């Protein structure tokens, strides 16, 4: 499948913040990679379904396949809901397992939390993908004063100013994005010791970027959220990372 990607060059990622459990802020060296320009849309995800993605155990982790079989999962949780299934809306209602399988199917993987922040914050460690200015509703789909406005995710091409320095759109608001790291409260502190990927097992995985139901603070690039790998919420989507081909 031809998914629009942007190149994220090798360099120093500025990750974390001074907020409790997000820090301390630190600089981490990251290899080059590519990232989807937008979140995966329902139209793109439908090709995964049509290609038999839910019937192909080789695309799934062992725990993911067991989960899929146990609950007889054959499409995302909100696949039939017109509020969420527009072709250009981001696919939502996908568990970590489904996100992981889709990423493998397109030849990529889910980004690590550090890679996600690198893609969102660029070289200068900005607070939001577009800079340090807090957003209004023209900039991103979120909940000013904590009350949702749109009651759904908007199409992935809306809010064109919501773009990171490397060209990734809508990394703040609309839908949270799954990362590959397990979630632990103390992960940001371990980064000082060189931990780049949280691989200590946990029931939870990292989510980044905020969503249409969240206030401004969770749209910050350093903000962290988490769900268990099985949860399928209408505020969570997928953005795939790709290893850069080395020649």
């Amino acid at each position, binding site marked *: 499948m031809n998914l629009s990607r942007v190149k994220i060059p090798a360099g120093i990622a500025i990750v974390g913040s001074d907020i409790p459990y997000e820090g301390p802020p630190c600089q981490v060296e990251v290899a080059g990679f590519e990232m989807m320009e937008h979140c995966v849309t329902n139209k793109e995800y439908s090709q995964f379904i049509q290609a038999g993605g839910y019937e192909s155990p080789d695309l799934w982790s062992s725990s993911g396949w067991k989960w899929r079989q146990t609950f007889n999962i054959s499409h995302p949780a909100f696949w039939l809901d017109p509020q969420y299934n527009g072709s250009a809306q981001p696919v939502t209602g996908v568990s970590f397992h489904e996100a992981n399988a889709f990423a493998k199917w397109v030849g990529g993987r889910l980004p690590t939390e550090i890679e996600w922040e690198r893609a969102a914050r660029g070289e200068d460690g900005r607070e939001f993908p577009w800079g340090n200015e807090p957003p209004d509703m023209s900039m991103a789909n979120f909940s000013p004063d904590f009350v949702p406005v749109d009651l759904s995710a908007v199409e992935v091409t809306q809010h064109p100013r919501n773009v990171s320095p490397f060209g990734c759109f809508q990394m703040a608001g609309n839908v949270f994005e799954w990362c590959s790291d397990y979630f632990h409260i103390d992960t940001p502190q371990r980064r000082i010791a060189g931990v780049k990927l949280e691989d200590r097992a946990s029931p939870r995985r990292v989510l980044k970027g905020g969503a249409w139901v969240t206030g401004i603070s969770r749209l910050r690039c350093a903000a962290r*959220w988490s769900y268990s790998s099985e949860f399928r919420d209408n505020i969570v989507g997928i953005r795939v990372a790709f290893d850069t081909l080395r020649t």
Partner: protein
Amino acid sequence: MRRKIPTFFWEYVKNKEMEKIIVNHDDHVLSFNGLVENPMQIKLKNLPNHIKPVKGRRRFYCVNGWSLECEWGGYRLSDVLDLIKPKGEFLKATSLGGYVDTTSIKTLLRGDSWLVTHMDGKPLEFKRGQPVRLMTFDLYQFKGVKALSSLEVVNTYEKGTWASVGYTDATIQPYPHKAIDTGEDLMPEDHLIELFKESLIHGESK
């Protein structure tokens, strides 16, 4: 400090006519039923004949990222349960508008949940869940059903209204929440951070 409390009253969002349903506190009938030894239908005004009212300052958390501490008045859920004597594991709370949520009794008692009728000394307003609501202080408040109509004791977990639109994990997360009462970004209290680490309700709310 003047405060503007965010409002996301699910039944109201779905049906603006709901606001016309203004229930008189005294005449409101609460139903306690299901797997209980003493099923009851009782007018709210008569509840103090059976249970001692309580009041106190407590903070609750909204999954959308804010919290609010004020003085609540009402009844301890544990006292209600002592009255009706549950014989099942879960409590299904239903609102006048049909919003439903089910939580294990063990989890609700862990956080000393209340049935709240008053906020800062005044009867609950419509948007706050008039005339009585369930308040869960150590879970996100989408578990705290507003405009409570009935509490039914059941033996199986059922997905609730909000869970059906996505939210399934009510564990308060280790993240600053905007305190509407002070304007500050506050971390959840230490005992809530510990609960998160233990993920005590993991698996219950799937």
